[in-house]
């Protein structure tokens, strides 16, 4: 199959999955809501209802895309490191420390904060990689455990050293203005984050598809035995992939706390969003250039569900169901259901045999 046809069939699959997921959502709404059509309309149209909601949608998509990019790097190397959440907290913490340091009020505040966050995240990414290559520790377990450690370190430092009294010990004082992204559209969350996400997309794509390191990484992911046979040092690739992904996770932490939405460090600021990056990258098949589009699409559904929660009588948990259906449909080799059965009924044996084989 050529690249072009592959692209078309993958896009078609994603669109079909989205339509199918929407249909299921509609069915659920019919059971849960007294005014199903109005509720469904809220779900589908509300993210576009005001400048503010559009801003939230874009801002969420930026964060989802960055999380997706971090996961795509490790997944392409077929390493199942799930440490993005921990990297986000450490990255957020480091960016916060920079914001409250003397640098925080200078023009260096943003780049220094971002750099610190990336270094912190990279370190958190490096640990499970190193543990795997030297000690054979399973990266799934070690990265998940590190998430807890990072989360609690962040909270500890926040409560003990950074919390402002007015907030009831759950958030820091607001950052100095120099440490917060400029908003591109006033009174929305559309800020520098969008540039960072797009730049990161291009960088990850470039690393993966234009550098020798990226080729080695992808070959290791495709077939580790082949990589070893070809003379690729796969343990170095593995550790460096996890470290680079960690840097992106840390960057996402900075985008959280430095963004106009926060401009401060709060307990649990990431709100589980890091893990949704897994969904983004699975749907995008780990292709960096597809990730922003998937993030926008998914961010929209997510935003619609949240607004439905406020404005209609169906809880936002519905989105969890939609999420599950989309993953299931995209990750499995999904075709339109019933096609095979229909074909069998019509006596076309090609399709029928496909269904049975």
């Amino acid at each position, binding site marked *: 199959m050529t690249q072009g046809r592959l692209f078309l069939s993958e896009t078609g699959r994603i669109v079909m999955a989205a339509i199918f997921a929407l249909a299921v959502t509609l069915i659920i709404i019919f059971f849960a809501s007294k005014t199903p059509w109005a509720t469904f309309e809220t779900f589908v149209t509300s993210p576009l209802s005001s400048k503010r909601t559009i801003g939230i949608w874009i801002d969420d998509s930026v964060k989802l895309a960055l999380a997706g990019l971090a996961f795509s790097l490790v997944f392409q190397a077929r390493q199942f490191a799930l440490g993005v959440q921990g990297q986000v907290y450490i990255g957020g913490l480091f960016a916060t420390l920079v914001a409250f340091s003397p640098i925080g009020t200078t023009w260096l505040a943003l780049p220094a904060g971002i750099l610190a966050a990336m270094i912190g995240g990279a370190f958190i990414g490096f640990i499970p990689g190193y543990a795997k290559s030297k000690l054979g520790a399973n990266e799934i377990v070690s990265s998940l455990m590190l998430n807890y450690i990072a989360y609690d370190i962040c909270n500890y430092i926040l409560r003990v050293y950074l919390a402002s009294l007015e907030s009831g010990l759950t958030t820091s004082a607001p950052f100095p203005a120099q440490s917060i992204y400029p908003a591109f559209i006033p009174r929305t969350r559309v800020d520098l984050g969008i540039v960072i996400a797009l730049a990161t997309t291009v960088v990850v794509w470039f690393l993966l598809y234009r*550098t020798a390191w990226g080729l080695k990484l992808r070959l290791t992911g495709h*077939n580790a035995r*082949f*990589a070893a046979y070809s*003379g*690729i040092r796969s343990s170095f690739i593995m550790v460096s992939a996890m470290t680079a992904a960690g840097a992106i996770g840390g960057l996402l932490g900075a985008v959280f706390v430095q963004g106009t939405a926060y401009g401060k460090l709060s307990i649990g600021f990431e709100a589980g969003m890091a893990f949704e990056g897994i969904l983004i990258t699975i749907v995008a098949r780990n292709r960096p250039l597809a990730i922003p589009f998937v993030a926008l699409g998914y961010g929209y559904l997510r935003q619609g569900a949240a607004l439905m929660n406020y404005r209609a009588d169906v809880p936002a948990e519905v989105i969890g169901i939609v999420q599950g259906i989309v993953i299931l449909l995209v990750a499995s080799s999904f075709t339109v259901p019933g096609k095979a059965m229909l074909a069998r009924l019509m006596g076309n*044996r090609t399709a*029928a045999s496909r269904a049975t084989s």
Partner: protein
Amino acid sequence: MTPFLEAIGIDKIYPGGVHANKGIDLSVAHSTVHAVVGENGAGKSTLMKILFGVEQPNAGEIRLEGQPIVLHSPRAAIAAGIGMVFQHFSLVPSFTVAENVVLGVEPRAGLKLDRKKASETVRELAERFRLPVDVDVPVEQLPVGQQQRVEILKALYRDARLLILDEPTAVLAPQEVVELFAAVRSLTSQGRTILFIAHKLPEVLEISDTISVMRAGKMVGTVAAKEATEKSLARMMVGRDVALKINRAAPGIPHTHLCRISDLTVKNDHGLNAVSDVNLVLRTGEIVGIAGVEGNGQSELFDAIGGLRPISGGSVELGTTDITHVSVLERRAAGMANIPEDRIATGSAGGATVAENIVATELTDKRFVRHGLLDLKSIRDHAAKLIEKFSVRVQGPESAIGTLSGGNMQKVVVARELSSEPSLLLVSHPTRGVDLGATEFIWQNIAKARDAGAAVLLTSADLSEILALADRMIVLYRGRIVAAFVNTEEVTPEVLGSYMLGFAEQSAEERNAALA
């Protein structure tokens, strides 16, 4: 007389668009051995899968003893009296022979399996059809040839009147082939019919009554074995004359010592010695063939020299460099190349493109990588050049290698490994599952590398391949060299076979004469 099995106008198009069978007619007479031969991708396997109910044809009819029959699943085929032995066995390793045979249709005593009855029945069956096997031994302890018997017994236990054997000799040593053929003859004399897929022509000629030849999804013709020759069959299969004849290394050229393997010991995955105290010198411009029944240390030996398995004792020197413990990258830099035994598991990254697969071993080369950046154009050009030179059938360098047929994928692997102009070339099973045309091509290229001065170490499950290519041969049995020969007319598969099965061992003097 009505044929036992008839296939009329069988047509099969796979969902991907591959037209694997085009109006195939096949007629198999009762109590005969009917061989179906053809190159890889000719559609033999598809036809057999249709006859066993694994695949459904798009058109056509199957008749069993004159009655039309629909085989919608293997279960239906078994019920109709058709059994199939696949190349890859489906046995439970820890179960005994008898348990494996009766699995699924067990004789019961109450709720429990009646072991005694199972053993007895299977033993009787084995005696009746001349398939001797110890029925109370776990299958995992049996050599491959006996495991195959268990598969045949499984089919016979389900009362198969037609047995489809898919390349049954591919995994067997010569003596085991003789035994298999004896069993096949006893089966036909007792009224069973055999449908035999193969591509080793001498064997086909020996065992079959009738031979059908397929090419590119079509049935080219059916001939009586008595009237066919190897040459005529090869021409039918490939569509042109095939010369599977490789010239020996030209005499008179000095063969300098290139690679010295001393007291080499290698452990297998279970920590046991798979290769013990192997001493061998490889010389430039010469092919050394390693014969052995699979699992006698060949894989471990090649992996160890290739750098994919640690060496636990002894040393390997390439030229003046000691490569015993160095990385694959350093080995390749020293002039090693490696055509691995499994092109899918080891020799390629299926999801990556052909160009990426080709450049994978050359990522330190300034032509392709500068300052850590890929030179995509020269990578693509290099791949396109090799695709052209090795006439690989592929859309282009950007196609995923996993979409290629076995023969074409192997050509890519061979092209990549030879393109570095290696001084030491490791070759394992270079033409396994590769069709005749590609085999000829790959053989010629290995010989070309030899003539360019490479020392080649070759192993193959196909003895005729070693006999055709090697200048010297050694036999590995349980990880030791038990015999060594200079390749002459006197060395036949039977001679090698007796050493391979451990029936004989050369004296040290005899061995060293050919090893030095």
